[in-house]
């Protein structure tokens, strides 16, 4: 469970050009389900994802990961809950690496290195045996049917293939939560539906999936358990299947 309590994110706080991207958002994201943040461009979806994914800190409010305490914060008598907004950066890094898998709108793959190396990249700082995570990366490429491109430079791939590499990369550290920001923005209808099928398989594995999208293929999908509507930084509506 990911709980947000009165989360606000302002940029240039206290200045004349202050902009509030997320305003007083309180939300509970249930585990093992697909939650879609729906809303027009500029509604605060991406900012909210970056706050949940420990890539930015809110201006006020708290975010608690219940039952998702990573090993780097182990104390021996923990309840499994961790409040992420107060954590110093060094701990956030550990959480980002192990708890979340990110799929970005523009994929954010590293050019100049191979497909396999891109997938393996997030596993290097974890300290796992190289052979183990190399085999895991090859397995993921096989799963997404792109193993034939393993040694090819990332620049040679099509949009759909690049996204599958991005998805494989997000899974390399076996995260509990998958965060996807506008994952179908650069895909045609067939590839978008294919993406949702992959999301369905993640859901089947019990992963928590959080997607920001204004694509009907995503938010009207039967896989979406909860749809949170956003506008102007706030939540304007929510449908949540029991």
């Amino acid at each position: 469970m990911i709980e947000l309590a009165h989360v606000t994110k302002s940029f240039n706080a206290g200045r004349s050009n202050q902009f509030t991207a997320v305003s007083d958002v309180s939300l509970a994201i249930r585990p093992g389900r697909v939650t879609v943040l729906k809303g027009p461009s500029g509604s605060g979806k991406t900012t909210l994802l970056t706050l949940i994914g420990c890539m930015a800190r809110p201006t006020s409010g708290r975010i608690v990961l219940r039952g998702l305490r990573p090993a780097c914060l182990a104390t021996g008598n923990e309840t499994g809950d961790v409040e992420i907004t107060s954590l110093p950066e060094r701990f956030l890094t550990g959480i980002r690496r192990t708890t979340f898998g990110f799929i970005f709108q523009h994929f954010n793959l590293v050019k100049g290195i191979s497909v396999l190396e891109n997938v393996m990249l997030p596993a290097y700082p974890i300290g796992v045996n190289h052979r183990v995570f190399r085999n895991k990366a090859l397995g993921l490429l096989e799963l997404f049917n792109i193993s034939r491109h393993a040694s090819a430079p990332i620049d040679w791939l099509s949009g759909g293939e690049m996204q599958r590499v991005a998805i494989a990369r997000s899974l390399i550290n076996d995260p509990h939560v998958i965060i996807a920001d506008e994952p179908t923005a650069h895909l045609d209808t067939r590839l978008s539906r294919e993406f949702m099928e992959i999301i369905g398989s993640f859901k089947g594995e019990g992963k928590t999936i959080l997607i920001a999208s204004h694509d009907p293929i995503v938010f009207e999908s039967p896989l979406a358990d909860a749809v949170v509507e956003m506008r102007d930084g706030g939540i304007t509506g929510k449908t949540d299947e029991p």
Partner: protein
Amino acid sequence: MILHPAILALLSTSLLTSFMVLYAGWYGARIIRTWDIKSGSELQLSLERRTYLISTLVSYTLVFQLLSLFLFIYTADNLHTLFSGAMCAAGTLNVNRYGYPLLVMKIINFLLAGLWLIINHADTRGYDYPLIKVKYALLLAIAPLVLVELFFQISYFAGLEPDVITSCCGSLFSIDKPGIGGDLASLPSKPMVAAFYAGMAATLASGLYFYFKGKGGYLFSSMSCLAFSIAAASLISFICLYFYELPSHHCPFCILQKEYGYAGYALYATLLGGGVAGMGTGALMPWRNRGSMAHIIPHLQQRLTATTIFLYLLFTLIVVYRIVFSSFRISG
């Protein structure tokens, strides 16, 4: 005032330290007043973000503070040739009335800065800011002392005139001289030798017990403080005599000179370093089993204990080596 590069460096360091400690102290006062980890208010989150940056900057500043003590005694020793009658740093410090108070303030601030660095190190390892109020309270206590040091430093260096006739260390640390220097010099040698070895042995024994059993942290810390005081007094009382091979020369500064292999720097560095680590071990005891510190402080205390034992042993070895190979012997 003498425009010596080291004097300018010391003044710059002192000004920088005072500014940083004052700024961090003001910020620390806000933390002590308003910190509430359970709150998600804008103020609380802003304090959380800034404390990391401020404590990092203060850490670097206080490392300069530690180093400045050694630069100060080096400078005082280096300048003695400018003053008639001075044979070492003892004479330079006696040029005006601010010299010795400044040295005392520098030693006090060295110990407190070391203590703060240890507490800050522990605090930044925890994810729940367990020592945040303690470390800023300590910083608020250090702030006025750093300002006093700055005042003494400016007054001392501004009052350094090359034509001043000062006293030599032989008279300042003579057993007939009234005052702390004379009192320490006149301490009876044999009981001091016994107290020195007993203090070091007790620190070693309590340190090893704490290191392996994890018990007796306060005892070890107290023993290391006691051993620190005894060793500092012993330096003047009898250790110096073996370096100078003279029965009446008790100066704690001449051993900083080339003639004595700069042994004074090694002695002071090991003693001060060991003392700070020992005190730090005790200072962390109340938080040893609290929250995220339960996994951090015991390991840190082990490292600090090992540091104290190592540095005190090194100090003792230097002393024993000198005693064994010196032709001087204390009689009676």
